[in-house]
């Protein structure tokens, strides 16, 4: 697997002459993305702005974003992984037959044309949304796109970036990464961070019922997670920190109202390209910030006697 080959949106704005949106609808979900970073901006390297850029949209249906794109490729639902794998084969001049391409809903001619344009680009960028990462195949669909972006660097500069949403999710990943070395799915029960999505990721832990308490900050799993996970949240003591009363608060034991970050609480938000942005509150709030609540809980716990008498032992032969 490739890892993430990425850049900041500033580079996209100044240099990207070939832009692919895969499984996302930026016109409606990230409405300022086109105008601020990808399509309309003029720069030293792209003096004519939109005219210097080629935009491709890959999605299962024609959304509003299709109007803004030069090329729209309608992929058959659930065939993203196959299409990306075919593209990986085609960039290496491997033979894929017309019938094999047809199962993705596209034709060989269209894909060859796309690859020609990709290879001819000076700076390509691929943005992928939840249409890719949340459909069948999940992490492997994203891995396929990231690997394609990595392999395109044999021909020209190419990067990939996820289209993140929902407030500061990127921030959570970034902070976890520099604190523990891993972005998510981390267990600290042995005294050192261990990473294993599927075993330690929140949704899997909740679905299996492997936890006896839940502490939720600024998220609403009660609205998005599968039924067994929600049932388990209702069963165990759940504590929610949120500015609003959410679905999760309704099934929790404790809800602590906090000041909304960026509006009434200061802090740092992370843009989807992992650039930190200071948040200056515009309003005053009677409620404490998330940070203050967590800090006070931590201080109270620190006053209690230490129940961990022995240092935890590392698992032998752990890799």
């Amino acid at each position: 697997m490739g890892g993430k080959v990425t850049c900041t949106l500033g580079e996209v704005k100044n240099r990207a002459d070939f832009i692919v949106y895969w499984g996302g609808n930026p016109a409606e979900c990230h409405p300022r993305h086109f105008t601020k970073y990808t399509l309309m901006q003029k720069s030293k390297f792209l003096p004519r702005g939109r005219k210097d850029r080629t935009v491709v949209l890959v999605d299962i249906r024609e959304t509003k974003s299709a109007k803004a794109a030069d090329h729209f490729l309608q992929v058959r639902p659930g065939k993203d992984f196959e299409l990306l794998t075919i593209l990986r084969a085609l960039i290496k001049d491997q033979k894929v037959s017309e019938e094999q391409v047809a199962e993705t809903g596209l034709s060989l001619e269209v894909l060859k044309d796309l690859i020609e344009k990709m290879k001819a680009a000076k700076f390509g960028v691929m943005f992928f949304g939840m249409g890719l990462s949340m459909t069948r195949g999940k992490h492997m669909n994203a891995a396929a796109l990231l690997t394609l972006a990595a392999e395109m660097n044999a021909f020209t500069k190419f990067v990939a970036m996820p289209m993140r949403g929902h407030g500061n999710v990127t921030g959570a990943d970034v902070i976890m990464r520099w604190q523990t070395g891993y972005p998510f799915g981390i267990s600290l029960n042995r005294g050192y961070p261990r990473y294993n999505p599927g075993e330690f990721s929140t949704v899997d832990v909740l679905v299996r019922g492997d936890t006896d308490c839940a502490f939720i900050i600024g998220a609403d799993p009660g609205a998005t997670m599968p039924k067994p996970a929600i049932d388990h949240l209702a069963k165990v003591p759940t504590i929610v920190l949120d500015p609003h009363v959410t679905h999760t608060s309704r099934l929790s034991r404790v809800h602590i109202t906090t000041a909304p970050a960026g509006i009434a609480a200061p802090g740092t938000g992370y843009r989807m390209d992992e650039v930190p942005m200071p948040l200056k509150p515009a309003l005053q709030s009677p409620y404490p910030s998330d940070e203050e609540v967590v800090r006070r809980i931590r201080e109270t716990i620190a006053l209690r006697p230490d129940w961990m008498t022995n240092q935890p032992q590392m698992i032998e032969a752990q890799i």
Partner: protein
Amino acid sequence: MSEVILRLKQDPVVTLEAEVITPDKFAEMSHEQICESIVYHGKRQLRLDEFFEVEGEKSEHIVLHGDMHRVRHLGRAMTMGSLTAHGDVGMHLGAHMKGGEICIRGNAGDWVGAEMSGGKIHVRGEAGQQVGAAYRGSLAGMKGGIIIVDGSAGIEVGMRMKRGTIFIRGSVKDFAGLQMIGGTIILGEGAEIRTGAWMQRGTIISLKPIDLMPTFGESGVMNPTFISVYSNLLKPHGCELPNDQNLGCYRRFSGDRSVPGKGEILIWQEHALN
């Protein structure tokens, strides 16, 4: 033959990490040492006898009883002896195992035999995801030994496996043999989609028709001799592969061209009855 018998007397509320339950450790331990060995109930370090009734000592044969679906890392990195469980077991069963034998009369969790390099695992029930796979970020999964699952298995069976054999009698979900580097996966009841995706080398044998990735190319039909050799080797483990050219043949597909790889997928096809 002396045995160490463990009976689960108290269900763990959260996961119980019990990598101490291996024949290598118990072979050297007295009854008292086994009772006081440390298991991790979530973050809490507890004695083994808080969860298990312990019988016997100093034996490389372990027998477990009870529903241990939250007990993880059983038989971790074992090199000898045997471990038998009557009931379900949790994740990482026999991970990093180098030798010996595991038999589970129940279902197993995810990561059965992950990165193992020798020995045998037999799961009589169903197995979870990532059977014989590589851990996240690791370059190679299973490097030797044999895993037999009588029931079905989840996604990513044999992900990045390098050597060894996996036999799944039931059906498997998506991505069987993902990024496979070598070894053999035998699918008794076929697979869902994306079998052999991104494989470099290795062999996937399916006894039922399966959907293939569009990046595989058909390369003829055959009755390879090695199938008969494999069948003879696997017969003591209760698996047989058909290879009678009067009855049928194997359709061979090679790929995955996106890598580009030299892996092969063999699909058994019976001749139409005339």
